């Protein structure tokens, strides 16, 4: 009797059920920043300029999710934990989700559909130009994120297309850096994190390259 409850408990915490629960758990977890914002907005906790505060908060989370997504591959490479790859698409789509909210906030709350002003912003304010470029490049990645689209494109082309995320990351960090006045810590920290994440890929690429060039010459010797 005791034994069976013990094994039941063991079964519940076994790798299998944790794995089953992991995706929904991450899904819900990724929504908490939004829930927090809604709650704060509803209770008057966003300060004197809630529209700007909300929009900067959404932008912050868009950038964070972008960096988290970019961290998945290095995490696998360094830890050998292949399972982490299951979350990459969801995290990337959450980055897109928060970017969409960020831009909707700008259009609806900040500018209230003042299209001429929005257009002027896009062409004249450099940080908005760069932000919009980053957003635009993210759209094809979101659209081709389904299994069907991966198959239709073919693995190689899909991978090539999704390398755009590096450009998007750089543009997003620049967008953040340019919008801040003076020299500020936060954009520098985000930029440094991005540099590390992209640097990892460069390091892997260089390693592979030197291996490949070494290989034949070693054989020749």
């Amino acid at each position: 009797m005791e034994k069976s409850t013990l094994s039941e408990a063991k079964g519940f915490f076994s790798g299998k059920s944790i794995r089953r629960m992991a995706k929904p758990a991450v899904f819900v977890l990724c929504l908490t920043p939004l829930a927090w914002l809604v709650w704060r907005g509803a209770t008057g906790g966003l300060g004197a300029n809630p529209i700007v505060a909300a929009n900067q908060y959404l932008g912050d989370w868009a950038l964070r999710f972008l960096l988290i997504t970019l961290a998945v591959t290095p995490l696998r490479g360094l830890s050998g934990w292949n399972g982490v790859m299951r979350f990459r698409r969801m995290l990337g789509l959450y980055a897109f989700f928060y970017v969409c909210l960020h831009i909707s906030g700008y259009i609806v709350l900040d500018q209230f559909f003042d299209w001429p002003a929005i257009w002027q912003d896009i062409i004249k304010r450099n940080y908005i130009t760069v932000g919009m470029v980053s957003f635009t490049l993210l759209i094809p990645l979101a659209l081709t994120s389904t299994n069907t689209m991966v198959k239709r494109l073919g693995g190689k082309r899909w991978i090539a297309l999704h390398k755009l995320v590096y450009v998007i990351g750089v543009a997003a960090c620049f967008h953040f850096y340019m919008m801040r006045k003076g020299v500020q810590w936060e954009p520098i920290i985000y930029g440094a994190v991005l540099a590390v994440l992209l640097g990892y890929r460069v390091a892997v690429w260089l390693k592979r390259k030197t291996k490949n060039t070494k290989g034949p010459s070693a054989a020749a010797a």
Partner: protein
Amino acid sequence: MLIRHKSPLDIQPSEITSKSVYRDRRRFLATAAFAGIGATFAPLIGPASIALAAAGTKGRKLEGVIPGPFATDEDKTPYEDITAYNNFYEFGTGKTDPARKAHTLMPMPWKVKVDGAAGKPGVYDYDDLIRPHKLEERIYRMRCVEAWSMVVPWVGIPLADIIKRLEPAANAKFVAFETLVDPKQMPGQRFGALNWPYVEGLRMDEAMNPLTILAVGLYGEEMPNQNGAPIRLVVPWKYGFKSIKSIVRIQFVEEMPPTTWNMAAPREYGFYSNVNPTVNHPRWSQAKERRIGDFLKRKTLPFNGYAEQVADLYAGMDLSKFY
């Protein structure tokens, strides 16, 4: 714009009571936030700590404040917002940093050094500088270069009155101001977000304009630290950053003095920095502004609505060049 001279029957600063109501509401919500969400998100809860800080630094009531000219009859921005949403990089670059961190500033005793081409140079105590003058309430619009604005009931003295007492020489064409440098009191100065000290300047005729004041308080009370205690400049027709805070030095000079934001980004911030909806800023369209508390933006007025008083100062100048 109409110049409205206030009669004694008008609302006095001491009668404005909405402040305490606001403060209690926010504090209640903030407490609930802490209880409900837990410490993980504590750094994100701005208003909680701000409410406490604001309560802690509540200023003393200023005595003998008389209503001054140029008062706008627009709705005043609540005390809670004026004191919780600030740009004061000496305490950090976040809007809520000053309210949370400015308690380390020691506004009393305070000394102001007066030098340059002045007939009466020297180091003036706060009392020596301010006490000889009558305090006036000046309810002004305040337009930030970031396209938001407030209506602030300042308490202060016409800068012209103080300048006259300091007897600038004939060759004094500009007035230069300097903010305190003391990283112990101003923790934001440990990081070089800007070059410290913060410096600003006005042309002599701008400084002598009756709109320009040295402010020592708001809402009838002593200046809160986060708003630039104990003495700050207020130049309502210019973007907010011209109105330098926590002044420790006033200098009369012949040449146009350097100004902090101009040095940081010359393409973005000029010496004059008059509010001008037709001169675009690389970061913000200046055509519109959001009054704190409003949802929709409103049109920005030339010289922030003070054209009648100051447009003459710039007659013949190309303001798209001298931005």
